[in-house]
């Protein structure tokens, strides 16, 4: 059967109940008649021979770049940077795309006799990856060749000795990035572009930047004016990164960009029902759903979390392009849209979404309430081009248990943010002005970030800023099935069921609202007309 595009279903009497994620579990909800459900396109057929495709891309670069072998020579300083654990979601089955690309690059570097090669995980302010995570991303062959010799490092945004200031953009944005990367003869950046926001100049300008540099676009003003993050011409975050990227290029940093896109085959066959249309569920799908949801309901959250985080996604490579940053990214963006774009006519009063157990910042970790807000309002809300799915003043209903649980090793500053900042304000601007700096410069958080596996002290603020556009746009946010205290702490309204949530929403949108559900997995982008 040929691949079917995404589509918008109008719910009628014959429509079976619709799947909603809810953290480490899922349920079926009966949506009111007349509601709409947006379904993602089916997966693109992957590239049959990824290694061959990667090699071809490196030999036939886009834009004003020579083929990679022509850029490699003995005695040169080569740095290979790569996306961190936040991509893709869930982590993909081995071999990871990063491994395949980096192995191919290293083959060419070895052939050219390049001795000075260093690998850097482009963390920005994310947590450092563990050895197991690095091995999974890069493969044992790469890890064992570089890590024991100190040639596989992770970007440290708080190491003044290993940062270099490259200048200011015309908007006054300071650009400070990883010194080794900036001073190399060639910087090869290996991307996994899961959404259109990923890649481009953001790779280096954000992934290898310091707090001093990041604060110029990771702030409430920029986030509020990124409508959306995924729609590049309308994203202030994108514009800021582009200004910085062009400054980096002007400063003489030679970037050879490699971008890859994956299909949306998100879960292995055992969970394939999750991304099927409900009326097409087979007997096996229904049996799996009944058994899994029943078992998960009786499983302690900690165990359920471990089960879900052990899932490896069967994502497969659909395109790879290499060369000059902007030329590459234009192609990549088109390829991501080809997989994820869905046409949607008009906005809705109520947007519903089921939030899964994972977001970019809790891989192998806990999805705490701040990340719940970020996933729903920062990511799912922003997966649009044109206009948001929900109208201005509308209501967002999210389903997630939203337990006030935190990973103390990964998210230490989140705990204090939740306890000290959120009780006082949920206003991103006030947080930015009154609290951000103290968290960002706290020596204990910096120490944990640099030596442990902790997100930077300022990271929970960024997650909240990520919600800034949605918070300014919608009239109310309701969380179904969430811990009431935690939900209220976020400034949202708790509801025990979808019916209750719709009742609460009627205060804002009236008694006969329109409703649109974004059906995930897999993720998709709404092109709202």
């Amino acid at each position, binding site marked *: *059967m040929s691949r079917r595009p995404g589509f918008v*279903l*109008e*719910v*009628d*009497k*014959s*429509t*079976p*109940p619709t799947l909603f994620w809810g953290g480490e579990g899922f349920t*079926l909800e009966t949506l009111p008649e007349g509601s709409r459900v947006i379904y993602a396109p089916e997966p693109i057929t992957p590239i049959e021979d990824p290694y061959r495709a990667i090699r071809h891309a490196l030999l036939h670069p886009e834009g004003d770049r020579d083929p990679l072998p022509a850029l490699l020579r003995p005695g040169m300083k080569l740095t290979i940077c790569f996306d961190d654990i936040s991509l893709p979601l869930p982590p993909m089955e081995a071999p990871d795309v990063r491994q395949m690309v980096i192995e191919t690059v290293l083959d060419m570097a070895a052939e050219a006799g390049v001795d000075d090669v260093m690998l850097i995980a482009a963390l920005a302010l994310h947590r450092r990856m563990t050895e197991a995570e690095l091995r999974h991303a890069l493969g044992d062959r790469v890890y064992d060749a570089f890590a024991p010799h100190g040639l596989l490092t992770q970007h440290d945004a708080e190491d003044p000795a290993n940062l270099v200031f490259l200048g200011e953009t015309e908007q006054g944005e300071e650009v400070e990035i990883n010194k080794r990367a900036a001073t190399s003869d060639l910087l090869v950046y290996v991307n996994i572009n899961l959404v259109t926001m990923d890649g481009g100049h953001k790779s280096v300008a954000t992934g290898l930047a310091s707090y001093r540099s990041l604060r110029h676009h990771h702030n409430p003003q920029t986030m509020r004016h990124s409508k959306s993050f995924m729609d590049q011409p309308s994203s202030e975050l994108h514009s800021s990164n582009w200004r910085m990227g062009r400054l980096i290029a002007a400063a003489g940093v030679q970037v050879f960009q490699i971008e890859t896109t994956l299909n949306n085959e998100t879960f292995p066959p055992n969970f394939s029902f999750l991304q099927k249309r*409900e*009326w*097409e*569920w087979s*007997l096996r799908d*229904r049996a799996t*759903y*009944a058994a899994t949801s029943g078992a998960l309901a009786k499983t302690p959250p900690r165990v359920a979390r471990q089960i879900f985080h052990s899932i490896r996604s069967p994502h497969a490579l659909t395109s790879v392009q290499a060369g000059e940053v902007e030329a590459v990214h234009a192609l990549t963006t088109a390829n991501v849209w080809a997989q994820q774009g869905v046409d949607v006519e008009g906005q809705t009063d109520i947007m519903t979404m089921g939030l899964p157990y994972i977001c970019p910042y809790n891989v192998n970790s806990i999805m705490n309430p701040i990340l719940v807000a970020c996933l729903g309002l920062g990511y799912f809300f922003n997966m649009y081009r044109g206009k948001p799915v929900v109208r201005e003043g509308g209501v967002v209903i999210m389903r997630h248990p939203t337990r006030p649980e935190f990973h103390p090793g990964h998210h230490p500053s989140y705990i204090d943010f939740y306890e000290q900042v959120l009780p006082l304000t949920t206003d991103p601007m006030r947080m930015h002005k009154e609290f951000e700096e103290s968290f960002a410069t706290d020596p204990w958080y910096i120490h944990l970030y640099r030596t442990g596996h902790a997100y930077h002290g300022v990271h929970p603020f960024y997650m909240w800023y990520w919600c800034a556009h949605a918070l300014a746009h919608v009239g109310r946010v309701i969380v179904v099935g969430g811990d009431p205290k935690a939900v209220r702490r976020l400034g949202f309204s708790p509801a025990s069921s979808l019916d209750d949530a719709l009742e609460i929403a009627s205060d804002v949108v009236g008694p006969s609202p329109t409703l649109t559900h974004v059906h995930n997995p897999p993720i998709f982008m709404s092109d709202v007309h």
Partner: protein
Amino acid sequence: MAGAGLRNRLRAPRFPLGAPSWPTSVPRPDPERKIGLDYDHAWSRKYPARLARAVVLDNVARPAARLLAPATVRGLEHLQHVDTPVIFAANHASHIDTPLLLTTLPVEFRHRTVVAAASDYFFDRTWKSVLWSFALAAIPIERSRVNRKSIDTAAELIEDGWNLVIFPEGGRSPDGWTQPFHPASAGYLGKRTGRPVIPVFLHGTRHVLPKTADADAIAPGGSGTEARHGGRLRRSPIAVLFGAPMTADEDENARRFSDRVEAAVATLSREVHSDWWQARRSLSAVSPTPGADTAHRGPAASSWRRAWALDEPPSRVHDTEWPN
């Protein structure tokens, strides 16, 4: 009240325990064709399926057939030295024809024979496809029009060493009289593969399992008893007559060969109440030209007269008349 409660309890389970309903606004795609002509029946000729079928055929079907339809079998000597594989071309009056014919075949044929079955009837559901593929080693054949795929499949199986049972009329006789043979069946396959065709006449099978009257065929205002006896098994003796193997001549086309096979079946039909010599004599008397005999198709008369002629008791049958 109790009945309603029971009905409620017995109501089909709701999704996800029950099957999902289909949204009205979503067009149903054509189901993936895995039935009918596209059904993959190769499994039914693998060793495990053949073994299981042989066990069922020899230990269940044959004893049951003897009890239900004691058979008089003639002409088995034609099969003793024939060069296999062969094509059995038989008249068709009942669904019971196939199992009864299979159970009368010698063992060396019985377990190496596939049956051409109507794709629109025996392969229109997955369960039916599985059942008939297993029970009869059936393969789907398009009967309403010429279909290259189904003919190719049958020819490939013959070339692969499988005997084939085919009913060249293309379906059961509506009234018991034989219908014209379809040239694109036994005649064509015999011509194409060069394999011998064995004419077969099955007598009396429509009494064992009569064809149910079509609802459309029942006249408005009828008594409602027209199909009273249809579709039920009844014990009744049968006769199975095998003719001499026939091969297509080099200059003979499929249509002419098909006519010749049909004539051979007609000759066999006359043997039921006489013998080979009487049948040959009566045939020559009626029609000296082979293939021109149409007596087995019944009189060109009203339906009751055709039925009357068909069901005439054997004691009243003249040796020049057929069938009974």
